[in-house]
C-alpha cells in the first residue's frame, strides 16, 4: 500500500514549542509539585482552579487552538501536545484535555460555518478569554470511531419561538473534566446541544484516577441550545483529543522512567545500587526504547492530517496507552515497598496511566479500527 507523505522534521520539536514547554514546566514546578497534587486528591476540590487559571489564561493554554480572530493563539495540535506532555509529567489536576476536546468540537462547527457558527464562535471567544471552561458530556471511554448514541433525549421548548431552544433529559456517566466546566456540550438525538453546567446535576464519582475526577451528569428537562446538527464534529473532536492524550501519556511515561532511574541509582541493597542489577537495567532500557517510539508516534499523531490522521491516532493510542501503563507499573515495582505507599507519587501515575489507557478508546479498540483503515480485516 501507498505510504503516508514523508514526515521528517515534523517529528521533532520546534523552538517555539520548546519555549512553550519551558513556560508550562516552570509553572508546574512552582504550582503543582507532586506533594501538593497528592494533597489535593484528598481535598474537597479535586481540580486546581488557580493552576488552571494560570495555565489557561496566563500561558494561554486554554485558547491555544482558537484562531487569533477569536482571541486565541491560532496554534495547532502540535503545540497543545507539548502542553499535554508537561501536564502528563505532573499528573496535573486541570481540565486541559476536556477543554481541548470541547474546543476542537467548537472549531469543527466554526469551520463548517453555515449559520450555526455564531454560538460556537461566542463560546470559543469566552474560552480564549478564560471566562468559561467547556467540556463534552460523554463517557471518557468513548473512542473516536464509535457512534455515540447516549441516553439523553430532547424535547422542543414550546413556549419559546427560537427553534434552537430545547430541553434535554437523561443521564450520562463517567464524564471527564466536566466538574470544573461552566458549559457542557451535550450530544443528543444526533445533534449537539449547549447546556449551562449549573443547570445539570453533576455528581462526582470515586474515580480510579484521583487527579482527573469523573462525574455522572443528569438532565431533567434542562434548558439546552442547539449548537449543531453536524454530528461529525464530535468524531473529529475525539480524534484530536485522542491525539493529544497520546502526548499526555508520553509525558507521564517519561516522568515515571526518570523518577525510577533516579531512585535505582541511589537505593542500595546487597552492597550495590539496585540500578546496577541487569534484571532492572534491561527492563529500564526496554522502557526507554518504548518511550523513544512513543515520542515518534505521538508527534506523528498531532502532525498528520486528512486520512492519515485517523491511522496515526489509532497507532498512537494503541502504542502510547500501553507504554504509559508499563512505565507506571515499572515505577511502582522498582520503588519496592516505598512505591506501594500512599505517600509516594507512583500511585498517582499508575492510576492516571491505567485510566487513560481505557479513555478515548482502549488499545484493542484502536487496533480494530486500524485494521479497517489499513485493510486487514478481522475475518
Amino acid at each position, binding site marked *: *500500500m*501507498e*505510504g*503516508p507523505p*514523508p*514526515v*521528517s*522534521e515534523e*517529528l*521533532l520539536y520546534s523552538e517555539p514549542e520548546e519555549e512553550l514547554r519551558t513556560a508550562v514546566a516552570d509553572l508546574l514546578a512552582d504550582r503543582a509539585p507532586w506533594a501538593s497534587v497528592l494533597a489535593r486528591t484528598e481535598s474537597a476540590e479535586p481540580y486546581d482552579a488557580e493552576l488552571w487559571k494560570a495555565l489557561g489564561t496566563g500561558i494561554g493554554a486554554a485558547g491555544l487552538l482558537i484562531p487569533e480572530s477569536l482571541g486565541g493563539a491560532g496554534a495547532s495540535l502540535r503545540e497543545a501536545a507539548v502542553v499535554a506532555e508537561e501536564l502528563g509529567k505532573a499528573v496535573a489536576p486541570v481540565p486541559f484535555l476536556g477543554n481541548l476536546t470541547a474546543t476542537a468540537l467548537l472549531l469543527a462547527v466554526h469551520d463548517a460555518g453555515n449559520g450555526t457558527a455564531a454560538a460556537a464562535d461566542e463560546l470559543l471567544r469566552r474560552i480564549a478569554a478564560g471566562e468559561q471552561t467547556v467540556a463534552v458530556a460523554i463517557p471518557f471511554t468513548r473512542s473516536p470511531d464509535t457512534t455515540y448514541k447516549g441516553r439523553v433525549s430532547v424535547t422542543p421548548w414550546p413556549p419559546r419561538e427560537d427553534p434552537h431552544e430545547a430541553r434535554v433529559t437523561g443521564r450520562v456517566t463517567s464524564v471527564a473534566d466536566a466538574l470544573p466546566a461552566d458549559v457542557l456540550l451535550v450530544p443528543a438525538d444526533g445533534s449537539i446541544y449547549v447546556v449551562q453546567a449549573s443547570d445539570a446535576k453533576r455528581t462526582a464519582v470515586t474515580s480510579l484516577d484521583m487527579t482527573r475526577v469523573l462525574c455522572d451528569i443528569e438532565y431533567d428537562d434542562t434548558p439546552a441550545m442547539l449548537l449543531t446538527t453536524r454530528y461529525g464534529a464530535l468524531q473529529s473532536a475525539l480524534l484530536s483529543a485522542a491525539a493529544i492524550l497520546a502526548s499526555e501519556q508520553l509525558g507521564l511515561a517519561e516522568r515515571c*522512567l526518570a523518577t525510577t*532511574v533516579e531512585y*535505582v*541509582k541511589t537505593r542500595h541493597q546487597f552492597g*550495590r*545500587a539496585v*540500578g*546496577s542489577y*541487569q534484571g532492572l*537495567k*534491561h527492563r*529500564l*532500557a*526496554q522502557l*526507554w*526504547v518504548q518511550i*523513544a*517510539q*512513543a*515520542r*515518534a*508516534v505521538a*508527534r*506523528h499523531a498531532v502532525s498528520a492530517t486528512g486520512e492519515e490522521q485517523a491511522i496515526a491516532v489509532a*497507532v498512537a493510542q*494503541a*502504542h502510547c496507552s500501553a507504554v504509559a501503563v508499563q512505565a507506571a507499573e515499572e515505577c511502582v515495582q522498582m520503588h519496592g515497598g516505598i512505591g506501594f505507599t500512599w505517600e509516594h507519587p507512583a500511585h498517582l501515575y499508575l492510576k492516571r496511566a491505567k485510566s487513560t489507557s481505557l479513555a478515548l478508546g482502549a488499545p*484493542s479498540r484502536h*487496533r*480494530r479500527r*486500524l*485494521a479497517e483503515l*489499513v*485493510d*486487514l*480485516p*478481522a*475475518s
Partner: protein
Amino acid sequence: MPPLITQHDLENRVQDFLAAHDPRTTSKQDFLRARFDAGLAWLHYPEGLGGLGLPRDLQPVAEKAFAAAGAPDNDPRRIGIGLGMAAPTILAFGSDEQKQRWLRPLWCGEEVWCQLFSEPGAGSDLAALATRAVRDSEGEGDSADWIVNGQKVWTSMAHEARWAILVTRTDPDVPKHQGMTYFVLDMTAPGVEVRPLRQLTGEAEFNEVFLTDVRIPDSQRLGAVGEGWKVAQTTLMNERVAIGGGSSPRESGMIGVLAQRWRDNPGVRDAALHDRLMILWVAAEAARLTAMRLSAQLAAGQPGPEGSAAKYAFATLNQQISGLELELLGEEGLRYDDWTMRRPDTVDFVGRSPGYRYLRAKGNSIEGGTSEILLNIIAERVLGLPGEIRADKDVAWKDLPR
C-alpha cells in the same frame, strides 16, 4: 544552519545529471562513477568524496529521482557493510589519500567490504580479541609493515570481499581497550584464508577467516597505534544506525509480507491471530516512525542514542513477525524451501520462504551487537545506570583469564 540547497534545487541537479548521463545508454559502472563524481552518491558526504555536504534527509529525494528514471543502483544490500560501517569509519579516521583510494569503488559497488572484528573468544566482549599485529622487524621503524596472525569468525561476505576492516591487538601488556589497532586489510593478500561457516538457515553467508603471517602496509592503518578501540566504536555506532535507521514507506519489510499474506488468505484468519497481527502492525509502524525521527534528528545535527534502540526494536520485531507468519501458514509452515548449502551475496529477507525468514531473523538479535549488549548500552550511556561489574579492568590483556 539553513540548508545549502533545497529539495527543488536537488531535483533539478539530478535531472541535469540524468540528461548528461542517460541510464539507457550509459554502462552501469560509468553511470555510478559519474554519479559519485557529481556529488550525488551519499549527499551528506563532503564534496569530492561523493557528496555535497547536505543534510541526510535529502538522500531519499535523490534516490527517488534516480529510481524514477530507471537509473542503476549500487546494490546497497550487497555492499551494506562497506556503506554502513567501513565508509563512515574511513571518513572519520582516514587520511585524504585513504579516502580517495577507498570510498569511490566502495560506493560504486566495485569493491565489497567485510568486517573482521569477532573472534572465537571475543564476540560481545570485542575488546578481548587476540589477533596479533606486530611490526615487521626488518622494516623501517614507524612506517614498517605489520604482520598479522589470528582467527576471525562469523564474518559476513568475507567470500566476496575485496577489503576488510580489521581490529587487532598490538600491545598485550596494557589493559585490553588500550592495546588495539585498526587496519584495512586486503583480502587478496597472501595468508588470508576464508572458509565458509554454515549457519542454521543452511546457507553460509558468513565465514571463518584465518590470518597467517599476513602483511599489511602501515599506510592501511586507520587511526593511531593503540587507538583501535576508539576507531571501532565509530564503526559499531554506525552499524547500529545503519541497521535500525532510515526512512522507509509504511509496511515495508517483513510486516508488509505478513500483512499481504493476511489480505490474500481469508482462510488463515482468526480472532486471536488478528489481534496479534495488529499489535505487530502497530509495533512496526512505531519502529518505522522512530527510525524516521532518528533520521530527522541526524539531519538536524542532533544525533541521539536512538540508533541502539532502533536496532534492538528491529530485531525483536522481525522475530515476532516471522514467528507469527509461520503460525498463520499452518501446515505450510512446517515446510522449508531449501537446505542446500549456498553462498548468498545478500541477506534476502523478503524474497525467500517464511521458514527462512523465521530462522534468519534469529540472527538479528546477535549480529551487530546482541540485544542484551544493546540494552546494557542504553542503560549505561543513556540512563546513566551503573556499569557492569568488571573483572578485567586495569589488568594487562595478557594476564586476563581465558
